[in-house]
């Protein structure tokens, strides 16, 4: 084994490398901030004397209906999450605690969605949506995601860890099945709901392909689609304004992440490992 000093040197080299990688990893975001908060002439020129400005944000905000896009995204994310919580709780409980014919086959069929996500089936799902008259509606964007195999799987795993005695005790006290689910299982699974909720909100806040396909008006477009149209090269908008718009679109999620960093990382971890 090498001496203490060489370990010290090797370690500081490693610390340096880890830091360097961290800085490289932050660079794109740092650049976005630079360009968004400085006048356009400094977008590609770096000078400590460059004046700060909010003009780019004001311009971006006035050139596209971002307020509406925010509202659409907010509506989409909350409605998908609410539906997912209800549907996945019911299904997760059924798979975890009830014995019925065809349960294992049904569960295997649910898991198919882990591999074949709705974005792969845009062609056929678009056709279905037009039959249902849901093209260009927020419901149309959210509907394919509401029964989430991932959510069902996570909640099933969590519900399975709830001691059966708790359910039996509640039943002795005269609780119905639904009451047991709401009063015993749901409160105990709170960490799973938080973890799944964060993952789901991030996913749908950022989702693009399916919303692009199914929307075609300002009234339904979420932020990502609005941003893509805004930033298209043919729109001829300034660099600085595009980066300002980009930051506007990611701001809520980014701020939430910076504030609750540990919670975010643990949620993604928790959700992935099950």
């Amino acid at each position: 084994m090498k001496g203490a000093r060489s370990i010290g040197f090797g370690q500081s080299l490693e610390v340096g490398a880890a830091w360097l990688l961290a800085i490289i990893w932050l660079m794109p975001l740092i650049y976005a901030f630079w360009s968004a908060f400085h006048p356009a002439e400094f977008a590609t020129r770096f000078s400590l004397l460059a004046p700060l400005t909010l003009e780019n944000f004001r311009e971006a905000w006035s050139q596209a209906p971002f307020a509406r896009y925010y509202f659409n995204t907010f509506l989409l994310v909350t409605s998908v999450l609410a539906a997912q919580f209800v549907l996945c709780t019911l299904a997760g409980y059924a798979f975890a605690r009830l014995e019925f014919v065809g349960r294992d086959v049904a569960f295997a069929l649910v898991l198919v969605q882990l591999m074949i996500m709705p974005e792969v089936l845009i062609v056929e799902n678009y056709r279905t949506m037009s039959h249902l008259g849901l093209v260009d509606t927020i419901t149309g964007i959210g509907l394919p995601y509401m029964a989430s195999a991932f959510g069902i799987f996570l909640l099933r795993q969590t519900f399975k860890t709830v001691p059966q005695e708790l359910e039996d005790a509640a039943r002795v006290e005269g609780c119905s099945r639904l009451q047991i689910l709401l009063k015993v299982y749901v409160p105990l699974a709170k960490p799973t709901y938080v973890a799944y909720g964060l993952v789901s909100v991030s996913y749908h806040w950022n989702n693009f392909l399916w919303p692009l396909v199914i929307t075609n008006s300002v009234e339904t477009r979420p932020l990502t689609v609005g941003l893509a149209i805004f930033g298209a090269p043919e729109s001829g908008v300034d660099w600085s304004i595009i980066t300002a718009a980009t930051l506007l679109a990611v701001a809520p999620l980014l701020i939430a992440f910076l504030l609750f960093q540990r919670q975010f990382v643990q949620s993604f971890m928790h959700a992935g490992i099950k």
Partner: protein
Amino acid sequence: MKHGGSRLDQVYGWLLLMPATVLLIAFTHYPTVATLGQSFFSAGTAARPSEFVGLENYRFLLEDEVFWKVANNNLWYAVGTIPASIAIAILMAVWVNGKLPARGLVRMAYFTPTILPMIAVANIWLFFYSPDIGLIDQVAAKFGIPSHNWLGDPDTVLGCLIVMTIWKEAGFFMIFYLAALQSLPPELEEAARVEGASRWYFFRRVTFPLLMPTTLFVLVNAVINSFKLVDHLFILTKGGPDNASSLLLYYIYEVAFSFFDEAYAATLTVVLLGVLAVVAIGQFVILEKRIHYR
């Protein structure tokens, strides 16, 4: 619990499953089957309704040069992104798991790209790759290297997308390795130190094999992502130049919603579904083997 369950359980079970089942069938199982069916029919027009054409669409697919190009691109995109992002993710996890000053900050830096939408990421990276005014060309100019149209050159465009994707994904994969590393018993490393094993040897012979389940999980996710993440193409290249950066799902989008050839789009989707099926079966086989060993 008794085998088969009570009659009440039967009713309850299916009642609770009903809402999720209806949606899953409507938007996952039905469209999967319908896509397969559609691929055997011609595209219908007002004058000529869609009719059964057997394997005609598949014959067309085999002769479609764009398809082969796109499939080839996607293969290289996967080969370029997956091993590199896994390697970087492991490195990040090892660093963030060790004693490191300002560890929280470094972890945040690595993880941040994960929560950004691909569209925003592409908007920002577009600037790096722009000819002349882009960051890369500005730095290159300082060294006297002439400017280059990174995204406009068929030889460099896919590489640009690969680098950006690695940046976006490595931090996400890192957290799974981090969780795995934290669950390893610390006695192992102590024992190795007593034995005088070097860190690299220890990593190669002990840590890395123990991380195998995580690697399998990450690998599956990475493969799926490399076939379903195409958002950035809409901003950066639109698949160009001359389809040099187009990926399978992007081509499906184009065929369906720009060329309005639903039948051929369905045929291409069948190929994509086939790829995903192979991934699923592969994962299943490996997992079965591992359980068998235990």
